């Protein structure tokens, strides 16, 4: 059940929508920041824009093609100065198809951000009412204020939890599932255990380079996405409440009387 329905199509653009799956909102974003996240991991830029389906497509594409082409492995070897090894790592059968889609992700998320910033400005000026409360059989979502620091802390512990904190179910589910895959396949936690025992050599050996290199972006994105969305949804709460107060608590007959302040 929602608290708003656009019955006769009288509005053109909406700046936000609260649904059972999460709060979707337009806000100003830096196109370079979004493009950067697409470069770090294809799909992340689109997920930040709440364009989930194409974000998921690009993300899964990245996992598969990067894995088959061994891009991450070649990165590790290149950064370590083993250029010959890096050449050997890469599979030409997969590698060349990596390039166009990778660049498309960056370009498309940059372009979309610029477009959506314009849409945001128009939506903000139109100031159409929007759904701000949603209750159903499986979930309940409403505008609220959350602490951005808590989003960051939970995202650090486990990518996806920060998104759960602010009710972004789709990103949360996706991030949680893929973090499990990456952590398991890269043996990261085994390495951490070795480190607790001070066995750095063993820790290094147990790691899978290809899979490990997915994790820094995953962590960075989870922190950034949950933080930025907490801040923005707090702002949305304030602007919605502002509108509510103006609509309901500004009676035309109310008068401020000149009086004396009473000190108790």
């Amino acid at each position, binding site marked *: 059940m929602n608290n708003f329905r656009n019955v006769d199509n009288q509005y053109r653009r909406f700046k936000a929508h609260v649904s059972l799956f999460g709060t979707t909102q337009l*806000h*100003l974003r*830096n196109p370079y*920041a979004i493009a950067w*996240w697409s470069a*770090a991991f294809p799909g992340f830029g689109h997920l930040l824009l709440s364009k989930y389906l194409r974000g998921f497509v690009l993300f899964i594409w990245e996992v598969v093609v990067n894995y088959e082409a061994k891009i991450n492995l070649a*990165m*590790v070897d*290149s*950064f*370590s100065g*083993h250029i010959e090894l890096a050449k050997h790592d890469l599979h030409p059968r997969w590698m060349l198809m990596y390039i166009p889609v990778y660049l498309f992700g960056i370009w498309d998320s940059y372009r979309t951000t610029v477009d959506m910033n314009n849409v945001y400005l128009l939506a903000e000026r139109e100031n159409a009412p929007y759904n701000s409360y949603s209750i159903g059989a499986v979930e309940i979502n409403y505008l*609220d*204020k*959350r*602490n*951005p*620091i808590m989003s960051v802390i939970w995202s650090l512990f486990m990518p996806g939890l920060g998104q759960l904190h602010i009710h972004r179910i789709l990103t949360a589910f996706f991030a949680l599932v893929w973090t499990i895959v990456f952590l398991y396949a890269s043996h*990261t936690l085994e*390495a*951490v255990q070795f*480190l607790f025992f001070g066995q*750095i*050599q063993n*820790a*290094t050996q147990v*790691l899978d*380079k290809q899979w*490990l*290199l997915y994790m*820094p*972006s995953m*962590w*960075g*994105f989870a*922190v*950034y996405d949950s*933080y*930025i969305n907490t*801040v*923005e949804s*707090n*702002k949305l709460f*304030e602007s919605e*409440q*502002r509108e*509510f*107060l103006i609509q309901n*608590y*500004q*009676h035309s007959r*109310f008068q*401020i*009387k*000149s*009086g*004396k*302040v*009473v000190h*108790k």
Partner: protein
Amino acid sequence: MIQIFSTFEHSIKLELALSTLEQEGIQKECIFAVPLTNRKVERRLFDTMHNSDGVSLVSTGATIGTAFSVVGASVGFSLTWGPIYWGLIGVAVGFLLGVLIDLFINTVVKNRQQLLRGKNPQVIIVVECQDGQADAVENILWNFLASGVARTTCNEHSISS
């Protein structure tokens, strides 16, 4: 007749305060809300639950931190401390670097003024009520986290009477 002035931050508590006042018999017409536009010039660098304007020290830090940790983890495979420590060192160094860059841009380049300390009042609420209700109204306002409350008396007729 009494008018009680108070300031609030935007929160669910504020709406609870208004609805409690109405339960106590204060008519909607006797409550006047003025949402303020908070100053945009002095932006805060550290966002909190109560205040956030999108300018923060985290964005550049998260960006550079991620990049550095990818490189750190990669190079770490051929260093003594291994990829996990070097990945973490990469994040820490990158994050600090990003924070420093943001600090530099926000304080030196844009020469921003000193940050405002404390919480900002965001909404002014004026409640008109009978003399006998004033204590109850004040209590409600305080209970729902008003940042300041003041009571004024006046002799004119109220709109509710």
